[in-house]
């Protein structure tokens, strides 16, 4: 029987982004996500992971654990680090102004992350930051795509 949960633990470094991607890709395939939803999840996880690489461990190299499981309706990814306490959901949204001069270069990643998954949750558990990303496995049917088409 196919496993319905697994995890990967890595040193938090940019070089390990590829390993993170292949772990998520494997789960996206297993959960039968559409290519678009697979990209959305890859992007959301990349943004969280890169944020951990950049900011969670200012003084030493630390670890990140990514855990995936699925049920009938969703693919659930949990990203855990033992870095400084940080709740990404409390970061103010960037101002998406259309004037180039006024656009800030930072702050977009966590904004994208929240837009691209169906649900996000943050918990501080002991010494760990745990971020949960939920992606629905159900295909969203647009109204205009009726059965007659």
């Amino acid at each position, binding site marked *: 029987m196919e496993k319905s949960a697994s995890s990967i633990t890595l040193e938090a470094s*940019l*070089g390990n*982004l*590829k390993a993170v991607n292949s772990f998520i890709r494997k789960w996206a395939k297993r959960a039968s996500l559409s290519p*678009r939803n697979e*990209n959305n999840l*890859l*992007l959301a996880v*990349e*943004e969280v992971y*890169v944020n951990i*690489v950049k900011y969670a461990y200012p003084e030493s190299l630390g670890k990140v654990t990514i855990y995936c499981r699925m049920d009938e309706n969703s693919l659930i990814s949990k990203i855990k680090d033992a870095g400084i306490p940080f709740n990404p959901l409390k970061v103010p949204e960037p101002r*998406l*102004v*259309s*004037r*180039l*001069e006024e*656009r800030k*270069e*930072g702050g*977009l*990643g966590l*904004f*994208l992350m929240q*837009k*691209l998954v169906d649900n996000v949750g943050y918990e501080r558990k002991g010494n760990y930051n745990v971020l949960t990303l939920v992606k629905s496995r159900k295909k969203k049917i647009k109204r205009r795509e009726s059965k007659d088409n």
Partner: protein
Amino acid sequence: MQITQKQEGEVHIFSLNGRFDAHSAGNVENELNLAISKGEHNLLVDLDGVEYISSAGLRVLLAASKKLKKGKGEIKLCCLKPYVKEVFDIAGFTQIFKIYNTVEEATQSF
């Protein structure tokens, strides 16, 4: 990420092929900065070979654009794949950049 460059009249064209993520963004940034420091001021980035972009890629394009604008230069983009266009829309980047459907259209617009 594969980066190829060519000159078309006054326009310096970067063609990117691969994932424009946190892993590849640094290389693209270095190449763009190098071209800008050599005095190129009309840059076109052809994204036809890019199926995926994250905030790291968006940040590189934004930074290069700001840098060029200070020297009266400009960066334009073309050939966005549907997923890349979607990320641009969410990030509000379709309003910041001039985006064209083809390399020819973009080159002629400078």
